[in-house]
């Protein structure tokens, strides 16, 4: 671990103790911003302004002049030999990550190539408006969170939460513009497509997190997920809870079915089958899914449900406390070659509502410190508009919501120095994923990623 402090933020015993669990709701978060002392608020603003975000070693970083350091923790050494670690988030009244053993990583894939420049808008960059005379989001509509950047006007709820933005993420400047190729690189955590690995990145993470006591370490709520390809740990992919009826229902025909399958004690290869059945069926006692049914009517009329439904299922797994540590969700439709403005707005609204609702649920069960939602997308879109939409691009900007170090991280790509009309890569995708693995999941990056990807400080 390059920075063990970050993985052990709960060395502060109070924060780690369930009995005094820090519970920062969205409202508390906002309140914290308004009422926390100059130090905390200043830290947040500084973090927002720190465009490079990973420049904790840079003497010129604006944040380096602040009393609480940059986006990683700072040690304040007292005259005595004791060392106290202070997390700037804690000082600012923000969420700090919970016990590493309880943390859940939720990866949300925006499939089709999300236009990052309509998601995180470089609101002061004239080149943005020059390249997109029709489709740029007007500055007045942008939701600012730092001097230079703001979120899509349709990400209002996320804007009110604790979030980090990682700029300039990509697969290097030699990637293709093929959805499939680039999805593959994302799924495998193989930014340059050169390592030859064939297993999914999340598969390698769950294998590291595998625990004999956890019946289900990884869950894809979007059906089969290539991110989990090749996992040895127990992983389930499904699209709706009906598929778990045979696991969760008490009705006799389900119970008898389970009982009968578990009778298979001595046939060929039965050991493996039985282990699989046992692992799956053991969820029955603790999974509250038997009463769960997704009801779109409890949400405002017209709310997009694709991601909402998936994250609602994710909520059930986290509530069940079955040891699930990694969840993958996926929302499609981001391939906005045409009619971008309307389509992207709708997609953003869906993402915004679903993630906010999910995190609200986490607050209600006191797990808001344990859950981090990280977005991925195979690529961004072309900088310049083409008709009513955008062609496939390369570099992207990604958002992470949860107990992160808020503000800008990575290095924003230039809108004028382009590679074939596309944003250049300043941060390899593998760095983004490796950071989530090591600093959030507590899995050493080297165990799940080839090479030595540079770790970022957004979490």
């Amino acid at each position, binding site marked *: 671990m390059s920075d063990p402090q970050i993985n052990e933020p709960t060395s502060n015993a109070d924060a780690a103790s369930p009995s005094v669990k820090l519970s920062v709701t969205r409202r508390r978060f906002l309140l914290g911003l308004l009422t926390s002392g100059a130090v905390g608020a200043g830290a947040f603003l500084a973090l927002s302004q720190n465009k490079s975000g990973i420049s904790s070693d840079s003497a010129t970083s604006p944040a380096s002049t602040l009393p609480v350091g940059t986006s990683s923790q700072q040690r304040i050494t007292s005259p005595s030999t004791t060392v106290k670690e202070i997390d700037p988030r804690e000082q600012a009244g923000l969420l700090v990550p919970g016990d590493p053993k309880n943390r859940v990583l939720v990866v949300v894939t925006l499939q089709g190539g999300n236009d990052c420049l309509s998601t995180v808008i470089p609101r002061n960059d004239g080149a943005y408006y020059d390249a997109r005379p029709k489709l740029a989001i007007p500055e007045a509509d942008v939701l600012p969170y730092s001097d230079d950047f703001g979120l899509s006007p349709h990400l209002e709820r996320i804007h009110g939460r604790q979030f980090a933005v990682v700029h300039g993420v990509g697969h290097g400047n030699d990637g293709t513009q093929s959805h499939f190729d680039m999805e593959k690189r994302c799924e495998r955590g193989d930014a340059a497509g050169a390592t030859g690995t064939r297993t999914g990145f999340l598969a390698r993470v769950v294998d590291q997190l595998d625990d004999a006591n956890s019946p289900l370490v990884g869950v894809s709520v979007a059906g089969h997920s290539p991110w989990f390809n*090749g996992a040895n740990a127990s992983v389930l*992919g499904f699209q709706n809870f009906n598929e778990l009826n045979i696991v969760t229902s008490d009705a006799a025909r389900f119970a*008898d079915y389970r009982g*009968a*399958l578990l009778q298979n004690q001595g*046939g*060929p*290869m039965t050991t493996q089958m039985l282990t699989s059945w046992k692992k799956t069926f053991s969820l029955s006692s603790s999974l509250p899914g038997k009463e769960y049914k997704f009801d779109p009517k409890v949400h405002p009329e017209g709310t997009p449900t694709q991601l909402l439904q998936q994250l609602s299922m994710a909520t059930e797994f986290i509530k069940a406390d079955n040891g699930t540590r990694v969840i993958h969700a996926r929302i499609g439709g981001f391939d906005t070659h*045409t009619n971008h403005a*309307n389509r992207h707005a709708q997609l953003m609204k869906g993402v915004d509502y679903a993630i906010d609702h999910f995190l609200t649920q986490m607050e209600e069960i006191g797990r808001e410190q344990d859950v981090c939602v990280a977005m991925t997308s195979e690529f961004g879109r072309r900088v310049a508009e083409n008709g009513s939409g955008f062609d496939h691009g390369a570099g992207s900007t990604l958002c992470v919501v949860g107990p992160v170090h808020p503000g800008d991280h990575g290095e924003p790509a230039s809108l004028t120095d382009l590679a074939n009309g596309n944003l250049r890569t300043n941060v390899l995708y593998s760095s983004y994923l490796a950071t989530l693995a090591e600093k959030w999941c507590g899995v050493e990056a080297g165990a799940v990623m080839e090479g030595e990807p540079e770790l970022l400080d957004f979490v």
Partner: protein
Amino acid sequence: MTQARTPWIVKLHGCHIFWVVFLYTIYMADRNPELRSAAQLVRRATLSNSQALVKSLASLSRAQAVDSLLARPLDTAKVPPFLLELKPKDIVTYKRTNKGKELQWWAQKAIFSTNPLQERMAFFFHTFLTSHQSSGGNIGVGNQIDLFRANSLGNFRTLLKGFLKNTTLIVYLNANTSTAKNPNENLARELMELFSLGVGNYSEADVRSAALGLSGWKTAYADKKGSNVTVDGTVIFQYRKAKAAQPAKDGKEAQKAEVATHRKEDDGTFVKDPKGIYVADLDGEGNHKPKIVFDQQTLISEYDPARGHQEAETFLGESKVWTLDSIADRVCDHPATHARITSLLWYHLAGVRLSKEKAKTEGSWWASQDLEMKPLIKRILNDPSLNETYYSRPRSGFEYYCAAFSAIGRKQEQVSTSDIKKLGQGLYEPPNVAGWPDDRWLLAESMLQRSNFAFGINKTNSTVLTTPETEDILDRCGLYEIGQTSLAAIADVEKSTLSDEEKTFLRWRVILNSPEFHLL
């Protein structure tokens, strides 16, 4: 169950790496041993697991049965174009490819073809000569299915060359972007690593040389390249959802309404409906805008000498100007390819992992047969060791689907690509270019999928489920050898308090989830 049950005989098969293989003694001594032998052959040589085929082969010796399977005439049907025809009023006829239909068609063939061995072998090639349906449209997929089915009992060299020229593969592995100036190594590497030689039998320099030799191939539209073209005087449009007019607001321009003229029905057809949701794509002026057009004949692959490499390179120890065909010939002449393809087929048909030495010997023998598939298939299926190795590998998701589908007696039109996908092996959707890992089929995700599939059968979608007798169910499932714990599990159904009908369903579901049914 009143029949005497003999105990299991357990023996670890020496050359298997992953699986503990049990040698079965035979349950039910009064059952016909010829049926058992025929069932084993049908399970391995076909995907359909047809009870009728088992019965028809039961009176033959193993050698005769294998010969009879190999002697069947090829099913020469080709994937139909599957174009949807749409006629928005006052304009022109629209056509649109009906995506995914070709996969359903192939799955139907896998189960109902008159030459089930041909289908089994076509599927075998799809498991390692991989492509993804997202690459280059479904026209190339249809062509590739035709290629596999036409050559699955033919010559490997012919099949490999056709595969390398398939448009879906060319797009899938970026060969269409590969030029002599900027060779893309993707196809070259996978050709050697996955489609022929295997890792360790080539160098990085060979990859580069092959990439140069393969450069210059691309996909094109045969009639009018690179433009919006018509097919038979018609124009094909992409269809999009209708939109209401949007007034100008907050500085955004007003948007015209997109008139809906067609509605998509549940069966995938489009009907005329002014209030429907599908319309032709419109350009910025509100005019209909032609999109990419193609049909079965128009999308082709072709070699462009100007993009290709015309200089001599050293590839696998030989220096010359290489072409796609000569590269394919070179890898087909290589002993490592013979050993590897032979090994893959031994595992696929017999569940046996050959040792390196045995693979070499078997590969060498296959090379002496000029890489013809029929002699190799015959040799494997007639091998005496097959009679000793029951249930030696898991059925893959598609294999499980086909076997269960035919056991429960569903009709051809009920073949569902969505169900196949739910079993983890959507055709032309391999998780990666290496295909589907052999070791995933008994993991929790797969077992949940299969448990769900078996639970999803009921008397409305599977007419034979009223069959109450265990022995009849076992026959339909092709299980003529089954262990006593599986029988005990089936017998335990009697203890259930469910109704008799529910008990019958449960018995079926349990048998479709018996360890024996999950295996080949």
